[in-house]
């Protein structure tokens, strides 16, 4: 008898925990079905809905950025309704979450992250009258999916060059969260930027933690474990590195927190001095992916157009889709000469005189 009562309490705890977890992750899709139409909508009726990948809405990184883009779009255009989002807990949630939103009559369904490619392809094919959009991926042949991709290697190249110029020990380091293209593209660009510095200056700055030729390096296998971030950084520092670029979401916070004056940190995705202000003094710069702007533009364009969005978005240095953030507290520690060279290099990449390549680049 007692165990029956016990199981009841246990179920309450389980449901409580799951519900709290869900509540933390925004509105769950309602099951009411609406009537969707893709005709040009009246004021406040174009519904934008977003499904996050497993990182969740508050990842201080690309899910958060995409959501920021949708909320900004709402402020910009009065044709848009209040945006909605749902966080995916597991990869198995992608298809149901996208389907629910499409069936609820969401006009603009945003999938965030390359991990959702297959799910988006499947759901978009089943809901041909709805506009879909995906960040960090493209689905060739699907006319109702608007792809938004970023050539992050270009900006990471600048960061690599800057780090090589800034490093006094002539050793810079990088590590990733997982060995997947959206992560390794940063590491490729970074390594090439350092290599470019070496050829220009006839110098020998070494990159620890990533070898572009063999595509092998250091990975935390986690986007949440800050202890691993710290341990990886300690390993690099022991080898003498004085600049570290973690491409590992929350894991990287362990690197930022332990920087002190041992090393400088290059942050990624969103300007570190905004997304992780408390560690601003550790950030040399950030390799920024301007996801909010891309998403905002797509949502506003979607509301204005009568048919499906055509074409695609590719963020580059030229259209400011990728960039490196201001130096903030390192402004006085980076020489004017080096700043000038970085600006010049940016112009060269835009002009095409310096080519940045990576196997992980969007095709």
């Amino acid at each position: 008898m007692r165990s029956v009562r016990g199981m009841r309490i246990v179920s309450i705890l389980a449901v409580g925990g799951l519900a709290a977890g869900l509540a933390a992750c925004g509105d769950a899709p309602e099951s009411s079905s609406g009537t969707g139409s893709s005709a040009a909508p009246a004021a406040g009726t174009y519904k934008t809905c977003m499904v996050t990948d497993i990182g969740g809405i508050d990842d201080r990184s690309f899910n958060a950025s995409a959501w920021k883009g949708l909320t900004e779009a709402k402020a910009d255009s009065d044709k848009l309704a209040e945006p909605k989002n749902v966080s995916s807990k597991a990869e198995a949630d992608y298809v149901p979450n996208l389907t629910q939103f499409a069936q609820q009559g969401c006009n603009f369904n945003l999938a965030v992250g390359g991990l959702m490619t297959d799910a988006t392809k499947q759901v978009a094919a089943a809901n041909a009258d709805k506009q879909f959009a995906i960040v960090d991926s493209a689905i060739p042949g699907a006319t109702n999916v608007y792809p938004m991709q970023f050539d992050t290697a270009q900006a990471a190249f600048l960061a690599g060059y800057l780090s090589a110029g800034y490093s006094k020990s002539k050793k810079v380091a990088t590590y990733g969260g997982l060995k997947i293209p959206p992560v390794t593209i940063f590491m490729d660009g970074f390594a090439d930027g350092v290599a470019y510095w070496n050829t220009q200056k006839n110098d020998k700055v070494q990159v620890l933690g990533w070898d572009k030729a063999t595509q092998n390096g250091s990975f935390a296998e986690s986007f949440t474990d800050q202890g691993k971030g710290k341990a990886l950084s300690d390993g690099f520092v022991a080898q003498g590195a004085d600049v570290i670029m973690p491409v590992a979401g929350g894991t990287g916070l362990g690197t930022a927190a332990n920087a002190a004056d041992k090393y400088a940190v290059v942050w990624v995705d969103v300007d570190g001095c905004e997304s992780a202000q408390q560690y601003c003094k550790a950030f040399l710069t950030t390799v920024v992916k301007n996801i909010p702007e891309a998403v905002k533009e797509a949502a506003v364009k979607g509301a204005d157009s009568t048919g499906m969005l055509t074409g695609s978005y590719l963020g580059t240095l030229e259209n400011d889709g990728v960039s490196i953030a201001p130096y903030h507290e390192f402004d006085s520690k980076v020489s004017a000469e080096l700043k000038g060279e970085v600006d010049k290099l940016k112009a060269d990449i835009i002009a095409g005189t310096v080519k940045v390549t990576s196997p992980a680049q969007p095709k």
Partner: protein
Amino acid sequence: MTASTVEAAQAVVEPTRYWTRQRKVGVGLAAVGVLAALLFGALATGRKAEFTLAETISGSAVGINGTVGAVLFGAIAALAGAAMLVTAKRWFGWLLGVGIVATLISFLCWQLSQAPDNLNTIPLGSVARSSVTLALPLILGALAGVLCERSAVINVAIEGQFLMGAFAAAMFATLAGSVWVGILAAGVGGLIIALLLAVLAIRFLVDQVVLGVVLNVFALGLTGFLYEQLMAKDQTRFNQPTFVPEWDIPGLSDIPLIGPALFKGNIFLYGAIVLVVLIHVGLFYTRWGLRTRAVGEHPAAADTLGVKVLALRYRNVLVGGLVAGFGGAYFTLLSTTNFNKNMTSGLGFVALAALIFGRWSPIGATLAALFFGFCSALAFSLGSINSPIPSQFLNMLPYIATIVAVAGLVGRVRAPAADGTPYIKG
């Protein structure tokens, strides 16, 4: 009764058999040594492999030609294995130690000799310090497990206790502006989960494994929700603790290798050492320990002798919660200075593995945790010298090593007999 008689009988018969466990391990070690000498020797280059006991590679280092080192140390391991055949039981521990270390050096000679210029030195002091730091949460989690499981309550909720501890530490250390308040709060955080565990397992007789899993879900959801509602909205006010201070022990902290690892510590390191000793002595040399073990092995017998079974279980589970909560503070006050969702990333389960690997004893669990920490630290170090081993394999290293060690060296492990069974006074 019968089991111990049989074991005693075997112990008497054993010397007449030639192929004892020690000799079998000896053959295995000799084979590993020969393999290391051949394989690593062939892969290594003639460049130098350098070792330093310091924390960085800037100091003086001992160097050896890569190929020579790999073959030499492989041969030493093989000799240690061969020696076991002769000496059998005597010096087994020492020979095994020499064999493992020599195999490791042989491996490192290969890795270092092929590393790029300026990266062919391994700072062993840094590896040692990282090993201990990475082991700390595992030690504290495993100790919490020892306290619970020795009194027969299975604790799968270490992960949840960690999370609550980590969250409470970050939040209250920031609000109060003091890490000590944070550590106290962490203890309370762990205690809350322990209280739920104790009441539901002991009073309501819920299946303890299911219960542990549910408590983990509950802790993950609750901390995630509070993170979202408070911390994410105002990081400065709720989620900006400081590091715990570093306490160097003068003199001792200058010893190479173990100095930085053991004597440049902090509250968590010294706390863990004190707790390991306390719990070991308490468990095996005090009345409390005897009663705890009795309750874990045969609660009915203990009850007959007047031990208050349920009260003792409550007390031990709650103390375990305090210890695990304290371990949780490690994540937000030592690893880093902020809380993020699910930041314990499964380490509570690794602590549980260390507990089993260490045969439910405080010292065994500590050694298991240190072993695991060392393997992780080694993997990170190899990553930082651009090892050609694919990163996936490097990251598997701690797990593979644990499996090999559990299967090959630990032998049969036995949980406390009553572990997981609730006690109903009959």
